[in-house]
């Protein structure tokens, strides 16, 4: 089937350029993908532009997150205490394995056979679905995009619009095969209605529901869950057992802080003024049970590095993916990590065994510029390159420049220079360095190279800085 075309790119650990190359084989598809994402970027620009205080909100978002991250232990403990006062049961998990074990224990205790789930990048990160399925629990992703890729047996290719890489004809074919819709039917309204009917039955018969968390409000002991489809709330409010998984970075001090982030989240994601549903759960239903699992899974490790730490300000709006020239033309499966795009590089490069995704970036800075919490993505990505260089893990081949560049990347100069200097440096590097393995996403786009500079000249001039 056609949708398997990109599936090849979704498997295994191959470097970014190789996977991008698979995606780029079909150039009209790449153009289509790029255009769809650019549309989101344009909607975002209109939404942001309509709010005169936009820049003030970005600054506030950044500072609220930074404040919380620098007082995280205090806020997490306050959050837990307040949850307990609201009859919410709180669990702590060091890593994905412990998270999955806790979730399974709760479900097993209640003899849960069927779990409805709304979108949660954290549970993707922990690979929860296969863990539960292997233990005999049916897991149903209920966000339409997630359900589509679940039925197609693919991982998400975007954090907000997970099936963005699929054409409606492919969805039609998939639904025809698995949900019994009419053959050849690809109208989005018809297909969405079919999914509504199919999933309604699942909601009504589920034994438990699970959601991610957009914000956890410390002083109330409440979690905020945002969706457009209403799937999180249809799920969590039918069965008597509800579970919510959150990274330690999701906590905010109070409702006022959440309000700031709610103002930018949807505007930056899809250009909507706010998500359709922003639900605040401050306790279980009558006779119900509510569990929150607080997960570290590498986040405290990230906090030990001043630059990487700022990636924990992210609120997962997906805006940086939509604006990224590399993501738009290489697709979500080329990153060797669950989360693609600039934020995927920021949080995934460290464990990227191909040591290539840190280079899937032109350092254009567009992502940093649009981020609602001012995550300094280009700075973080550049920092990852340096860390890889220091660890002797540069992805380059035997090109003559490579050893020099390796040293250069790890040098004190690059350690201390500002991003603007770094950008200049990279602009005047030979194209093969900027696109170290003839990056497939850049094949059809020559990047401007300053004509009168050479890398050697630049390096001589700056090595003494």
């Amino acid at each position: 089937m056609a949708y398997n075309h990109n599936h090849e790119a979704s498997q295994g650990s191959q470097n970014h350029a190789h996977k991008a190359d698979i995606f780029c084989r079909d150039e009209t598809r790449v153009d289509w993908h790029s255009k769809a994402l650019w549309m989101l970027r344009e909607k975002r620009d209109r939404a942001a532009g309509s709010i005169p205080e936009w820049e003030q909100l970005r600054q506030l978002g950044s500072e609220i997150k930074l404040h919380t991250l620098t007082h995280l232990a205090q806020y997490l403990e306050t959050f837990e205490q307040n949850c307990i006062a609201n009859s919410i049961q709180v669990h702590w998990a060091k890593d994905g394995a412990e998270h999955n074990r806790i979730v399974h224990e709760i479900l097993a205790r209640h003899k849960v056979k069927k779990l409805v789930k709304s979108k949660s990048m954290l549970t993707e990160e922990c690979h929860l679905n296969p863990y539960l399925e292997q233990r005999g629990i049916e897991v149903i992703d209920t966000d339409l995009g997630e359900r589509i890729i679940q039925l197609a047996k693919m991982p998400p290719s975007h954090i907000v619009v997970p099936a963005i890489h699929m054409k409606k004809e492919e969805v039609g074919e998939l639904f025809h095969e698995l949900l019994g819709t009419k053959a050849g039917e690809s109208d989005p309204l018809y297909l969405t209605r079919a999914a509504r009917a199919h999933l309604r039955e699942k909601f009504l018969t589920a034994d438990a529901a699970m959601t991610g968390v957009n914000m956890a409000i410390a002083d109330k002991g409440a979690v905020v869950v945002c969706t457009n489809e209403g799937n999180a709330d249809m799920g969590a409010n039918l069965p008597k057992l509800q579970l919510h998984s959150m990274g330690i970075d999701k906590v905010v001090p109070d409702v006022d802080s959440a309000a700031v982030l709610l103002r930018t989240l949807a505007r930056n994601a899809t250009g909507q003024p706010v998500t359709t549903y922003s639900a605040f759960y401050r306790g279980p239903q009558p006779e119900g049970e509510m569990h929150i699992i607080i997960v570290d899974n590498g986040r405290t490790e990230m906090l030990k590095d001043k630059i990487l730490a700022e990636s924990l300000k992210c609120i997962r709006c997906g805006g940086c993916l939509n604006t990224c020239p590399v993501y738009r033309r290489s697709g979500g499966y080329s990153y060797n990590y669950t989360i693609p795009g600039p934020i995927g590089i920021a949080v995934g490069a460290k464990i990227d065994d191909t040591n290539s995704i840190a280079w899937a970036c032109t350092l254009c800075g567009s992502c940093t510029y649009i981020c609602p919490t001012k995550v300094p993505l280009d700075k973080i990505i550049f920092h990852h390159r340096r860390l890889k260089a220091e660890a002797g893990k540069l992805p380059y081949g035997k090109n003559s420049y490579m050893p020099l560049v390796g040293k250069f990347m790890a040098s004190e100069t690059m350690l201390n220079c500002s991003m603007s200097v770094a950008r200049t440096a990279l602009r005047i590097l030979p194209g093969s360095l900027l696109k170290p393995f003839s990056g497939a996403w850049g094949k059809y786009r020559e990047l401007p190279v300053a004509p009168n500079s050479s890398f050697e000249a630049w390096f001589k001039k700056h090595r003494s800085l």
Partner: protein
Amino acid sequence: MSSKLEILNALKLSALTNHPMPSIDVAPRGDNLIGQFETNLNTVAGTLHKEGGLIALQAKVDELIAQGLQVISLVDGVTANREVPPTAHELKDIDYAVIPGDIGVAENGAIWVNNKNLGHRVTPFICENLILALPANKIVPNMHQAAKEITLDVGEFGVFIAGPSKTADIEQALVVGAHGACSLNVYLL
């Protein structure tokens, strides 16, 4: 050592230096709140009924019932043909739910709903169509103001609802009516 302790201990090694909490002081755009609210409600695919209040709302409910539809009302002064059932699942065939909204937000068309007025928490999501009744003097300029005025007491559930449920997950085509209500009408009281 418990995982909680391990995590809290690991946090002590953070490289970030303390950052103060900023004061959130955003100037509201306070002119013509109802007008702003209506524009944004339309943007999120909802419809506003400004005239007629409870009488218009009851007339609408009567009309729906006359069409043979199942309607439940949780708004004082509006009577419908269904009562709150013992279990949430029994709401599955509700065509229209009429629910009081507490606070409207002009900047984005969202309306805050608290579980005290829902019968079951799932009511505004499981109904085919949703009608919210909102006092006209309860529209605030923005989310900062709304954050101050919503109620969410110990153990409660509340939700900002901005329009009917929707999705654009198939090729970015907007489809109204995903898993929640397929339409939203708001009556100003």
